[in-house]
């Protein structure tokens, strides 16, 4: 096993990885940007090395600086977390060439699974169902029209090099396909300098269900059940759960999807932890979407229902150990659910809300797990992703998990900045959410029927009393400096 590992990330995920390192008695090394000198991940580490600069592009995305830091401190391996360099094949190759272990899959597996068309091709060869459509780039609008007639409308045009919804067009009728092809290609060209577009059948009201896989370097791979992440805002997951309420309805799907995921991953020569994402339609048919070649943000829900520590296994597998868990030893117990608490203002179009956390209260009690990257008095920098804390709960049933999550959210308080806590409380109260009636457009529909909380007159009276007392206290405190200027900077 390694003696020292560098964590090439920040925020809650760097803290999560360092906790595993500490428990395994492995030394941890943080890297940090100028604005992150006092960040929680630096406080958690045994050693910390500055990267110089603030923007991601000069710090956490600089593979050369990170490798140099690892070599200088004698670390043997690098854990990339998620985001930043975690799915960068060149970085994985650079680690290897520098005599360091990249804690993740091989560079060649990252590369094969990184392009959507090559990943689809691989999945298809492995017998994993893919949405009807083309695997290669379309040559013309006419070809698109021809294929759409075959597979049936609605269809979706997607940029081959794409992501994040760019270069995507949904087409309902034949008369729109030419214009959509033109738009998608030119948007793809502008966004990715690659105009290649392919076509797929559009799946109506799909669920996003993903399978966690874990495999060692000797070809042994298992699946650890599914997660459902259908509650998304602008393709960004906000609530994740495991197991999936859909698979609770169609239990035979778990094994089918699990085996399909393992087949696709093994076809790419994959090892370490990974996630195969599927879209499932209302009838229970499912299609390969893509594979994420790293630890996922939402990995804790899988850890809660399986009792398996994914980060520790990542470390053991990277160190060349055998995965000693067999598929029939994996059992799923209870229900887990996660909310991503962001520094953002749901009342102002989810605008980012960086700034100082002036007060902080965190939940506790049975079944609550908190993966946090923040502390009271710390200023959330504006340079990076707004994820502050992942709040995860476990309970015996889905209904109990929802009640527990609601209770834990009520106990959570992040003062001084805006967060999406209240937004989550409103979503959890929604009858369709409670019924597990989810699809990837769930939130778009929910916003239209959202019921906002209203305070009773008694609540408001109490709130006013508290504010009056705070105002008195503030006047006494404010004797020293004058009100903070809004004009600095």
């Amino acid at each position, binding site marked *: 096993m390694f003696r020292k590992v560098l964590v090439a990330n920040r925020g809650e995920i760097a803290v999560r990885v360092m906790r595993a390192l500490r428990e395994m008695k492995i030394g941890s090394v943080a890297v940090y940007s100028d604005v992150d000198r006092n960040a929680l991940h630096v406080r958690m580490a045994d050693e910390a090395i500055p990267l110089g600069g603030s923007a991601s592009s000069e710090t956490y995305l600089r593979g050369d600086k990170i490798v140099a830091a690892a070599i200088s401190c004698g670390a043997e391996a690098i854990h990339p977390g998620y985001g930043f360099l975690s799915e960068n094949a060149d970085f994985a190759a650079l680690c290897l060439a520098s005599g360091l272990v990249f804690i993740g899959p091989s560079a060649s597996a990252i590369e094969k699974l990184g392009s959507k068309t090559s990943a689809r091709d691989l999945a298809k060869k492995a017998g994993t169902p893919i949405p009807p459509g083309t695997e290669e780039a379309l040559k013309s609008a006419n070809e698109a029209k021809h294929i759409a007639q075959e597979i049936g409308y609605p269809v979706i045009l997607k940029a081959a090099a794409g992501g994040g919804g760019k270069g995507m067009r949904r087409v309902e009728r034949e008369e729109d396909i030419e214009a959509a092809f033109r738009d998608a290609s030119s948007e793809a060209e502008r966004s990715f300098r690659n105009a290649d577009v392919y076509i797929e059948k559009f799946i109506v009201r799909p669920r996003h269900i993903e399978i966690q896989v874990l495999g060692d370097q000797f070809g042994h791979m298992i699946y650890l059940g599914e997660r459902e992440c259908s509650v998304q805002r602008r393709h960004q997951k906000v609530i994740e759960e495991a197991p999936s309420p859909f698979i609770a309805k169609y239990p035979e799907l778990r094994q089918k999807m699990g085996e399909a995921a393992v087949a696709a991953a093994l076809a790419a020569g994959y090892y370490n932890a990974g996630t195969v994402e599927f879209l499932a339609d209302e009838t229970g048919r499912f299609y390969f979407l893509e594979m994420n070649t790293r630890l996922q943000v939402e990995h804790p829900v899988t850890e809660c229902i399986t009792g398996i520590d994914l980060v520790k296994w990542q470390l053991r597998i990277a160190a060349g150990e055998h995965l000693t868990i067999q598929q029939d030893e994996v059992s799923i117990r209870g229900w887990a659910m996660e909310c991503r608490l962001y520094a953002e203002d749901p009342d102002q179009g989810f605008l980012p809300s*960086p700034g100082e956390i002036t007060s902080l209260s965190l939940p506790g009690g049975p079944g609550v797990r908190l993966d946090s990257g923040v502390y009271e008095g710390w200023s959330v920098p504006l340079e990076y992703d707004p994820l502050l804390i992942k709040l995860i709960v476990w309970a015996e049933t889905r209904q109990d998990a929802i009640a527990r999550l609601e209770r834990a959210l009520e106990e959570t308080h992040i*003062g001084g900045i805006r967060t999406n806590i209240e937004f989550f409380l409103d979503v959890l109260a929604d009858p369709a959410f409670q019924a597990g009636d989810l699809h990837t457009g769930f939130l778009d529909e929910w916003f239209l029927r959202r019921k906002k909380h209203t305070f009773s007159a008694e609540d408001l009276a*109490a*709130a006013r009393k508290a504010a009056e007392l705070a*105002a008195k206290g503030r006047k006494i405190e404010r004797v020293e400096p004058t009100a903070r200027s*809004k004009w600095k900077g």
Partner: protein
Amino acid sequence: MSIVKVERTVFSHLDGQRQRELRVDSEGDSFVVTLRGRQTRITIVDPRAWSGTGAGKAASGIAKVATPMPGKVIRVLVALGDKVEPGQGLVVVEAMKMQNELKSPIAGVIKQVQAVEGATVTANQVLAVVESDAS
């Protein structure tokens, strides 16, 4: 009725036996009060503590355009003396990978541009002033 301060920003309120815990964070001249995760904003009017300059509020025919979020100015789209239409973008502010374009609420002429590309700005900072050309 009884109310006690139990932590630096937390109050316990008893109305008979009914207990409520209230968290109070100050935000500018008002307070955000949180009750079991739910928030409301309360302003306590105290003339002696009043320090308002009226920044951001439109005087007749003048619109001060302020950024609702802190961030970095990445583009300034107008210059002094430019004519602008309602809804026209004036300044783009970026934070946490999200860009926000500040738009002119009125038709008019740019009277002031306080934004400089690359500068860090705080929430509610005025970045441009537009004077209505209707006068």
